[in-house]
């Protein structure tokens, strides 16, 4: 108990290892205390070696950037969909129009690929669906039927869709978003003409 009192006994200030071996000699000044957190990036002592340039490097670089762009245009790039609207608050005519465009969007997103893979997709979609409740099965089956019908119509629309696709599709998203603002703005005054 005496030795535990306040740590002022004989054992004070002794370390388990030999201080000289570490490099701090007796009587040397300790390093200055750190008053602030260490900097975000450690100081760079040596400059990095330059990147390999040359024909191969540039070709691969161009390829990489091209691939990145190409993948955004493929149907595999799924863009976040517009949220569901409350149709009770909006005029019915808007509903049909948006639904039609919504259908187009679904068909853009899914097969622009050739037939066989799309049918395979429908196979796997159907297999996924067999686990679902009936409601969801019915709606997605409906969608697929509409897709199949519209695939032929799509050939005319396809060129137009490609143009839409080549621009930032975000514009199309905001285009639809106007519908929501429209509905939100003209809350009770449904008399106003909606352009």
């Amino acid at each position: 108990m005496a030795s535990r009192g306040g740590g002022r006994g004989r054992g004070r200030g002794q370390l388990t290892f030999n201080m000289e071996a570490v490099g701090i000699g007796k009587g040397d000044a300790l390093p200055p205390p750190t008053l602030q957190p260490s900097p975000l990036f450690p100081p760079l002592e040596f400059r990095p070696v330059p990147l390999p340039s040359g024909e191969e490097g540039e070709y691969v670089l161009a390829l990489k950037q091209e691939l990145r762009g190409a993948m955004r245009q493929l149907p595999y790039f799924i863009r976040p969909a517009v949220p569901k609207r409350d149709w009770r608050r909006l005029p019915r005519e808007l509903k049909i129009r948006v639904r039609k465009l919504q259908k187009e969007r679904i068909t853009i997103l899914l097969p622009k690929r050739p037939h066989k893979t799309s049918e395979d997709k429908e196979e796997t979609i159907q297999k996924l669906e067999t686990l679902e409740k009936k409601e969801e099965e019915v709606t997605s089956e409906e969608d697929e039927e509409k897709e199949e019908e519209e695939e032929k119509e799509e050939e005319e629309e396809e060129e137009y869709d490609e143009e839409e696709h080549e621009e930032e599709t975000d514009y199309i998203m905001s285009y639809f978003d106007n519908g929501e603002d429209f509905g939100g703005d003209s809350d009770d005054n449904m008399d106003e003409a909606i352009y």
Partner: protein
Amino acid sequence: MTQAEIKLCSLLLQEHFGEIVEKIGVHLIRTGSQPLRVIAHDTGTSLDQVKKALCVLVQHNLVSYQVHKRGVVEYEAQCSRVLRMLRYPRYIYTTKTLYSDTGELIVEELLLNGKLTMSTVVKKVADRLTETMEDGKTMDYAEVSNTFVRLADTHFVQRCPSVPTTENSDPGPPPPAPTLVINEKDMYLVPKLSLIGKGKRRRSSDEDAAGEPKAKRPKHTTDNKEPIPDDGIYWQANLDRFHQHFRDQAIVSAVANRMDQTSSEIVRTMLRMSEITTSSSAAFTQPLSSNEIFRSLPVGYNISKQVLDQYLTLLADDPLEFVGKSGDSGGGMYVINLHKALASLATATLESVVQERFGSRCARIFRLVLQKKHLEQKQVEDFAMIPAKEAKDMLYKMLSENFISLQEIPKTPDHAPSRTFYLYTVNILSAARMLLHRCYKSIANLIERRQFETKENKRLLEKSQRVEAIIASMQATGAEEAQLQEIEEMITAPERQQLETLKRNVNKLDASEIQVDETIFLLESYIECTMKRL
């Protein structure tokens, strides 16, 4: 999966497939195998979106599924496969060097689409090649098919597992998900297709290039209704084979750097001869006799048999041990030590990193400890001929970064520090792992920075794109020089400067990603082959 890997996967998925696929993919990587309902519930996305995302991921071989008991289908993500997406440009470029533009486009289509049937690939590639050709020329399907067959023969593309053809009329309900099987023999078997046709240009239907008669066009529309002959046989790019090729390339260039061109050619010949006979995870190639090698040398090299023997002896005696002698029959049987070669390459990478990060004196100490395996601090100072204080400093710096580790050997059972040996040693496997982890972090940082730079200058980029579009359309309709000048001046000089800087930075960041990916490949191959051996 480490946090760094998950972060990198998330960035890659987001860049290539969008945010919804990214959310689902990252959730699967984090939590392992899960059924559809649980995924939808946990991520809070609608069932529709989850289905679409899963379709995309399965199509690209990033997620696999399995039927569990009670008919529940569970989905599992392959994190390492997602990381391969960094290497797509390298795969495509390699195919270009081996099989020229046709092969390049075939592999590109397969990588971009995940899986495709042969006829689809041939048609797409022919169309794309026709676009780039001069007016009046088209690409024949037969040529593309030939290249495809060659790719399949050398195992660069392989068949995906397919739905088994069940003969029994099982009265029960069909299984919720097909169990796909693939026969080893069939993996590279190309179906017998007679694909006749030429590539089509994507122009208005009036001007059909190559003057195809109008009679052909109704045939094109009927093609859509005819069943495609190789229905259900899908092909994918065989990434393992590409990795084997990269590994061979690395070994050959290492030999060329260490010795000379001729020895590297000999090693390349040996590797080429064992391409198909040796599996990708073997430790050694099959033994090859010196006579065989002599016969298979490329035609341009007319070195005599004795010179070849001398080179082989030299290679076998080299301390790096890339080539080993396994027998004396047939003029000497030689093998290539693939695992040792990979270990040497990984070690060289580590040394190079230490040198570039800490300086050449640190590199000297590092190489010393590597060579002598275990050294005390005093011995390090003596052998490296570096003053004690500096040597201490450097050792501790490397120790703090985990390139070097400390091995304690107690003299007394109470492990008293004053009576314990502390030996410095390099554990190559753990140092390689540490470096790999750092590489993943680096690439994640590089991608983030690139996205940040692009976002900062988004307004400027959009403006320049618009201006370019305007100029292009005006040129197409034949505008005067003055008008074009005017439009071009819409972008002011400082803006142009900014664009230049942006472009330069983005290029540099992209090139760095590609460079780090090469290091990742070496380290991953080394770790994989070492783990297999243990």
